[in-house]
């Protein structure tokens, strides 16, 4: 790997590659895309499945991406992206193929294509922008919706109060494929995220980044709190920053595990029905997870 340049607001290109899109104001996913593209550069070929980001960016005749870009069938981000990569390779073009998909498009309907693409071992980058639900279709539960969250298919009902299943562990699932590079990130830590995109770019094979991306519309928080929330979730340990490189896991940041998760939860209406018991369960899950992570990864 080449000597890493420090990546921050001053060193990234001033050019914008994602502009005039129709995402909600304050959309975390669109911020993740915008900055990832600045690191990835103008030459890349992008594949995006159905999902908010595709929906708001390819509305004929208003195209928001500067790069070559294609919407893929919902299940097919990684398949189209590796098809693009194979086509470029066969035509002797040395360009990067990058897939961007939401949590639903990654952990649910797209996991098969992703698994197959990683297994084929050819270089491409896959970035999952995780807003913890199917937002484009109106906030339905996905495999990455966290325990307790109310969505339109797991509403806070009279007998079942929100989502009862924990979040699927995409990062470790991907790592178990023996991928060249994988990382988790958050739009609350943008420099860290951009640095990881840079590493993914330099990886010698498939690379995967999972970036936590708040959605004011789906989560019910103020549109100006996107970054704050995405930072808090890392600080309190409900989300984590980690990497998988050369077959090894590494934690990038240790949270304050005794912090009150309410600061995070209360800022979002999707959690407003939670009882004290629910919150204790969330804290217990956090504890359990970190016990393992610290033991195994540090």
């Amino acid at each position, binding site marked *: 790997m080449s000597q890493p340049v420090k990546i*921050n*607001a*001053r060193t990234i290109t*001033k*050019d*914008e590659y*994602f*502009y*005039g*899109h*129709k*995402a*909600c*104001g*304050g*959309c*975390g996913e*669109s*911020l993740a895309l*915008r*900055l990832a593209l600045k690191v990835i550069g103008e030459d890349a070929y992008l594949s995006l499945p159905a999902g908010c980001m595709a929906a708001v960016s*390819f509305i*004929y*005749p*208003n*195209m*928001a*991406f*500067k*790069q*070559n*870009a294609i919407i893929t069938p919902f299940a097919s981000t990684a398949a189209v992206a590796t098809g693009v990569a194979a086509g470029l390779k066969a035509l002797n073009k040395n360009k990067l193929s990058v897939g961007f998909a939401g949590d639903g498009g990654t952990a649910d309907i797209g996991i098969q294509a992703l698994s197959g693409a990683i297994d084929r071992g050819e270089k491409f980058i896959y970035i999952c922008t995780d807003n913890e639900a199917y937002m484009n279709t109106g906030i339905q539960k996905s495999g990455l919706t966290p325990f307790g969250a109310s969505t339109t298919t797991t509403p806070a009902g009279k007998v079942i109060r929100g989502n009862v299943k924990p979040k699927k562990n995409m990062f470790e699932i991907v790592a178990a494929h023996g991928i060249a590079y994988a990382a988790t990130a958050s739009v609350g830590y*943008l420099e860290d995220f951009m640095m990881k995109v840079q590493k993914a770019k330099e990886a010698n094979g498939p690379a995967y980044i999972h970036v936590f991306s708040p959605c*004011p519309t789906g989560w019910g928080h*103020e*549109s*100006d*709190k*996107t*970054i*704050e929330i995405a930072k808090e979730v890392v600080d309190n340990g409900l989300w984590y920053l980690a990497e998988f490189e050369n077959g090894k896991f590494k934690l990038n940041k240790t949270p304050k595990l005794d912090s009150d998760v309410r600061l995070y939860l209360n800022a979002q209406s999707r959690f407003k029905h939670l009882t004290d018991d629910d919150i204790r369960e969330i804290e217990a899950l956090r504890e359990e997870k970190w016990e393992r992570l610290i033991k195994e990864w540090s």
Partner: protein
Amino acid sequence: MKDFKRVPVPTLERLDQYPLGSSCKSFHITDMNAGWRVFKPVIDKDKCVACYRCYLVCPDGAIHQSEDGKFEIDYDYCKGCGICANECKVKVIEMVKEAK
């Protein structure tokens, strides 16, 4: 620096003026988002310390540094989400109610 020019909506009077396939040129921006705002961010340029934070965090890329080193907002595309104001450490961005 936004290196694009807004382009006019294409003329579509005959079928052959429609794209071949479901394709369109990239960065073919025909639209503005100005009308989405209820509040608009206003930077107090004198107090701005040019820390780049607002530029970094804007999901719409609507803030850029101008020649003079100061940061400016492209109101054609700012949606008024308020992130820049919230994230400016020196609190020199104010959210002001839009009026027609």
